[in-house]
C-alpha cells in the first residue's frame, strides 16, 4: 500500500521529513526521549513532538561521554545530538525514568548545542495518593517551562484540542492493533511497526487522516485466513527498532498479535477524560497506564498485566525484547518469567542491542521457539 511507503520513508529518514516540515509550516520541533512525555502539551504549544530514536551507525562521539554499561538507545540518541544532525530541533524534553536517560539529560545539557532543555521530574511511585497531585504539579511546571522556552502561551482551549486529537489517534491505534490481532495477514508486522514509529514523528493531523484510511481499509479486508498452526506471539520490553524481527517471526510460522513495548501499546494506551481539567487528565493517564519498569505501581503489577494481556489476545508465547544494559527491564525479567512459567506461558529472552545478533542464529532461535510452542 502506498500509505505504508509514506510511513516507511518517514521512519527511515525522519530528519529529512522534519526539516521539510519545519520549512513548510514554520512550526517548532521538540524532541523527546520516552513515552512518559506529555505530547499533548507540546502539541498545544504549536510545536511538533518528535521522538528521538538514536542511531546504530558508527557511534564514536557518544562513547567519550558514556559508561560502557549504557544501553545502545541512550548511546545512539547522544551520538545524534553530538553529531549536529539534530540541529533542526528547538529543544529536548527528558522525562525522568531510568538512570541512563537522566544522565543523558545532564550530558546533553553540558555538551549539545544549547537549545532549550527541560527535565520532567516525574514521581517514581505512581500508586500513592500524593503521586497524583505531584504529577499534576509536574505537568503545570512543564507547561510553564515550555511556554517560556518557546515564547508562547498555552491556552486551555489548545490543550483540549490536543487532547481530543491524541484521543482520536490513540483510539485508532488501538483499533488497528485489535483488527490486526484478528486478521494478521492484512497487515505485515513490519508495516505496523512503521506506522507506530511514524506516529511519534510525523504531523499528527496528517497521521490522523492516514491512520483513519488504513483502519478503514483493514476493517474492509476479508476475515482471517490465518493458518490454524500459526503461533501467536506477544512482544514485551522497552523498544523494538528492528522491523526485521517481524519478518523473522512471520517466516518461522508465527505472528505478533500484541505487544507491551514503549514503541507499541504503551505508547497509545489510555484515553484521556475530555471533560476533566486538561492537565489533570494528562496526569491521570500516566497513573492508569501500564507502567514502564522504571516506574513503580505495586510489586507485581507489570507481571499481572502481562499475563492478562496474553490471555486476552490468546497468545501462545511471549518474547522478552531486552535491550542490553537496560537494567529496569532486566530487574523485572526474573519475576515476570517465573510468573509466566507458573501460568504455563512459554517465553523466550532476546538479549539485543541496536544492532541485531547475526541473522542465522536469530532465525534459529525464533524457529525453535515457535516449533516448540
Amino acid at each position, binding site marked *: 500500500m502506498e500509505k505504508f511507503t509514506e510511513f516507511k520513508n518517514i521512519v527511515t529518514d525522519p530528519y529529512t521529513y522534519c526539516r521539510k516540515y519545519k520549512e513548510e509550516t514554520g512550526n517548532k520541533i521538540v524532541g523527546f526521549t520516552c513515552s512518559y512525555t506529555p505530547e499533548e502539551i507540546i502539541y498545544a504549544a504549536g510545536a511538533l513532538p518528535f521522538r528521538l530514536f538514536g542511531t546504530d551507525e558508527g557511534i564514536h562521539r557518544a562513547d567519550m561521554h558514556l559508561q560502557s554499561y549504557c544501553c545502545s538507545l541512550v548511546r545512539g540518541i547522544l551520538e545524534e545530538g553530538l553529531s549536529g544532525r539534530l540541529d533542526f530541533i528547538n529543544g529536548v524534553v527528558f522525562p525522568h525514568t531510568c538512570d541512563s536517560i537522566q544522565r543523558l539529560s545532564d550530558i546533553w545539557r553540558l555538551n549539545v548545542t544549547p537549545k532549550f532543555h527541560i527535565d520532567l521530574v516525574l514521581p517514581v511511585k505512581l500508586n500513592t495518593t500524593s503521586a497524583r497531585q505531584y504529577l499534576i504539579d509536574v505537568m503545570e511546571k512543564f507547561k510553564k517551562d515550555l511556554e517560556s522556552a518557546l515564547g508562547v502561551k498555552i491556552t486551555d482551549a489548545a490543550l483540549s484540542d490536543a487532547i481530543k486529537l491524541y484521543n482520536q489517534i490513540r483510539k485508532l491505534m488501538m483499533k488497528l492493533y485489535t483488527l490486526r490481532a484478528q486478521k494478521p495477514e492484512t497487515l505485515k508486522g513490519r508495516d505496523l511497526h512503521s506506522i507506530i514509529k511514524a506516529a511519534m514523528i510525523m504531523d499528527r493531523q496528517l497521521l490522523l487522516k492516514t491512520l483513519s484510511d488504513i483502519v478503514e481499509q483493514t476493517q474492509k479486508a476479508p476475515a482471517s485466513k490465518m493458518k490454524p498452526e500459526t503461533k501467536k506471539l506477544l512482544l514485551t520490553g522497552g523498544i523494538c527498532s528492528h522491523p526485521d524481527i517481524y519478518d523473522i517471526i512471520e517466516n518461522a510460522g508465527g505472528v505478533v498479535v500484541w505487544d507491551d513495548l514503549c514503541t507499541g501499546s504503551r505508547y497509545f494506551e489510555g484515553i484521556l477524560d475530555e471533560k476533566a481539567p486538561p492537565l489533570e487528565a494528562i496526569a491521570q493517564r500516566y497513573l492508569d497506564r501500564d507502567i514502564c519498569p522504571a516506574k513503580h505501581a505495586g510489586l507485581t503489577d507489570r507481571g499481572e498485566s502481562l499475563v492478562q494481556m496474553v490471555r486476552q489476545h490468546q497468545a501462545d508465547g511471549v518474547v522478552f525484547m531486552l535491550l542490553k544494559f537496560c537494567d529496569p527491564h532486566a530487574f523485572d525479567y526474573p519475576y515476570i518469567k517465573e510468573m509466566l512459567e507458573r501460568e504455563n506461558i512459554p517465553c523466550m529472552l532476546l*538479549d539485543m542491542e541496536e544492532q541485531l*545478533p*547475526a541473522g*542465522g*542464529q*536469530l532465525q*534459529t*532461535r525464533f*524457529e*525453535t521457539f515457535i*516449533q*516448540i510452542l
Partner: protein
Amino acid sequence: MITAGIDIGSITAKAAIVDGGKIIATKIIFTGYNAELAGQKVYDEVLIEAGLGKTAIDKIVSTGYGRNAVGFADKSFTEIMAHAAGAYFLNPLIHSIIDIGGQDSKAILLDDKGKVKNFVMNDKCAAGTGRFLEVMARALEVNLDDFGTMSQKSASPSKISSLCTVFAESEVISLIARGEKRQDIIAGIHESIAARVSSMLARIGVQKPAMITGGVARNSGVVLALSKKLDMEMEVSPYAQVNGAIGAAILAAAL
C-alpha cells in the same frame, strides 16, 4: 523407511542415513565457502558410504545454520530440534543436551518424551566454541585432536581469565612466553570453556542425565572439565559430532 539427515554447520557439514532404528552411514566434510555445494557433496558421499542410490532414500531433512541452502531436502528443522531428536534416539533417558559447535554453543532441556522444553544459545561470543579451540591450537602449535589427551596430563591447569577469544589468545601467548607447560595451558583452556558453558547452563538448569554433542564433544578434555564443573557425568556418544544429522534423519522419518 530409509531417511537422510543433512546438518550444515559453520565449520563442517554432516550427513547420516538411518533405516528405522539403525544408523547405516554417517559422513563429515568441511563446509567451506559454499553451503549449498557442501550439502550436495556430503549427501553424495554418505550415499556411497551406505552403498545406496538416491532413489532408496524416502525423505530428507536438513538442519544447521545452512539448512535453507539444502534445496533437495523435504523439510528443514533448526539444529536444536535435530539435536534433541538425535540425542533422544541415541538414549531416550537424556534430559539435557549441551551442544558445542563451531560457532555457538547451546543447552537444550528435554521432557520425558524427548520434546524440547527449553533452550539457550550463546551466539554473541566465540569463547566456549569450537572456533575458540581452533584459535588456541594454532597459537600452541598443537594438533587439536591431541588436546584431550594432553590436557589430562596436567597437574596444575593454567588460569585463563579472559572471556574473549582474541584476548584469551594473547593471554595464552603470554603464558607460552612465561614458559608454562603446554598441557597446563590446554587444561586451562578447557576449564575456561567449561566455565563459560556452565554459566549458560545455569540459566535453564541442567537435569540429569546429560549428553554432550557437537564437534567439541570429541575433545575429552572439555568433556572432563565440564563434568567436573557441573559435578555431573556427561554422556558422550561416538556419534556426538553427527548427532544433528542423525536427529534430522529421525525427524525425516516422522514427516
